[in-house]
């Protein structure tokens, strides 16, 4: 955006809008060029940034769903970390944030979020059971904005860095790493009840990490009959899915939760699980998911049933 009907402004005038992230890419570039030249401007930018953060600290905190943490932790093992900024740092005017902004909201992140299926107030999206098609390309690590002085650690930079970025696109070792993820579900209840627990947990964690890393990962969020947040994540390509439920009530010892794939052929049992009642209960389903399958959860006698004997407490359409 250019100033249509205005006199030339001094770049220093952009300091406020810059700290508030209210500039477009062109103006950001102009301002960062200015920063590169002026120590005083850098000091002001740092102070105004701190001021903006003070505004942020005045906002009332909001507790995230338990599933968000469980999901994040499952992704760490397959998410490589950047090395420290190589020294000496690229001198000269900071590169703008623009290239990053283009990839912007989609960078880095595997798309699955166990977000609440809370009714959306403003956006026009369907309030429940909404299906997000995955944004893929878990790559392109977005350069980290230089938050203090804006002198440009944001440079998308050197060939080496770009190579690094490319490497990020294919965290090929995620399968190996995912085993380590098993150790992570400290916060969530994880009580699949077969086999020897460790091996089972590893498989489960690897499955969840795999879904999260899949380039066609999708999710559907809804609520159970009793109002708990429930999320289905799946990959049609991999043919696997997982159900995550927040604060699912614990069952008496003679009952289990059971998962089902439901399609034209009927209901196919896909494993049982328990819940401790708080945190996030989740399980990767046994068997193969086919595109369009429904996924349901019922309460069954201990050990599970061949066919559902009760109405589902929650069902998803994939």
């Amino acid at each position, binding site marked *: 955006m250019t100033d249509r009907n205005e006199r030339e402004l001094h770049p220093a005038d952009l300091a406020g809008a810059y700290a508030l992230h209210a500039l477009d890419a062109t103006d950001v570039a102009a301002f960062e060029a200015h920063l590169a030249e002026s120590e005083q401007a850098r000091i002001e930018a740092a*102070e105004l940034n701190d*001021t903006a953060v003070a505004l942020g600290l005045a906002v*009332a905190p*909001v507790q995230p769903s338990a599933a968000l*943490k469980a999901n994040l932790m499952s992704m760490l093992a397959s998410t490589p970390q*950047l090395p420290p900024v190589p020294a000496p740092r690229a001198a000269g005017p900071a590169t703008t944030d623009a290239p990053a902004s283009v990839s*912007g909201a989609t960078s880095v992140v595997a798309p699955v979020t166990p977000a609440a299926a809370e009714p959306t107030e*403003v956006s026009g*999206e369907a309030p429940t059971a909404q299906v997000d098609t995955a944004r893929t390309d878990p790559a392109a690590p977005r350069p980290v904005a230089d938050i203090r002085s804006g002198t440009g650690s944001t440079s998308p930079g050197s060939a080496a860095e770009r190579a690094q970025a490319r490497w990020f696109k294919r965290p090929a070792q995620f399968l190996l790493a995912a085993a380590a993820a098993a150790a992570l579900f400290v916060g969530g209840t994880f009580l699949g009840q077969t086999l020897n627990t460790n091996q089972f947990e590893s498989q489960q964690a690897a499955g969840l990490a795999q879904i999260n890393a899949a380039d066609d990962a999708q999710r559907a969020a809804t609520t159970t009959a009793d109002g708990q947040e429930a999320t289905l994540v799946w990959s049609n390509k991999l043919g696997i899915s997982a159900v995550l439920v927040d604060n699912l009530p614990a069952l008496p010892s003679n009952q289990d939760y059971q998962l089902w794939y439901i399609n034209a052929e009927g209901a196919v049992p896909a494993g049982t699980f328990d819940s401790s009642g708080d945190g996030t209960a989740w399980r990767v389903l046994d068997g193969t998911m086919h595109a369009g399958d429904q996924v349901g959860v019922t309460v069954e006698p201990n050990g599970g049933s061949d066919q559902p004997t009760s109405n589902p407490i929650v069902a998803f359409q994939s």
Partner: protein
Amino acid sequence: MLDLMTVDPAGDFASVAPATKEELLARVAHGDQSAFGELYDQIAPRVLGLVKRLLVDHAQSEEVTQEIFLEIWQSAARYEQSRGGASTWILTMAHRRAVDRIRSSQAGRDRDTKIGIRDLAVAYDHVAETVEVRLEHERVEKAMTRLTELQRQAVSLAYYGGFSHSEVADMLHIPLGTVKTRLRDGLIRLRDELGVAS
């Protein structure tokens, strides 16, 4: 590595004081997942609170919060303590990400423009969870009263509404150049009122 060995979530040797966010971030930079979990517990509600303030929609806000924490995980090694506290680093990233989401999504553009015009006071509709937040809020609210009406509106729209300077100009019916100077003057006044200086 020494700093990794200090992490012993299962052990009973846990230090008396909880680790600072800066310490945690340093451990995260070395791939310490339990430090990441701890850092998350400490600051995720702040991050989600801020993001939701801008995006309104809860599900979308959790999604962006997830992106932010993955960025923290990925780029922890690039955090430089000499340049500011961990909260500053994280909340700046959070605000930028929320703004990116608004700019990049139609949902963002379709937001009722009224949400940007809300006062800080209105935004603060739930009672603060902690004394710390309440004090911070009162301090900021007081500082805000020192701004001119136009400065206050422009700063609120840009920061809490996530609007660009040209959107702010449209909404307030003032020239873009005026918005730029109001944003700068307003923030400088806030800086002085809040005693932020390096």
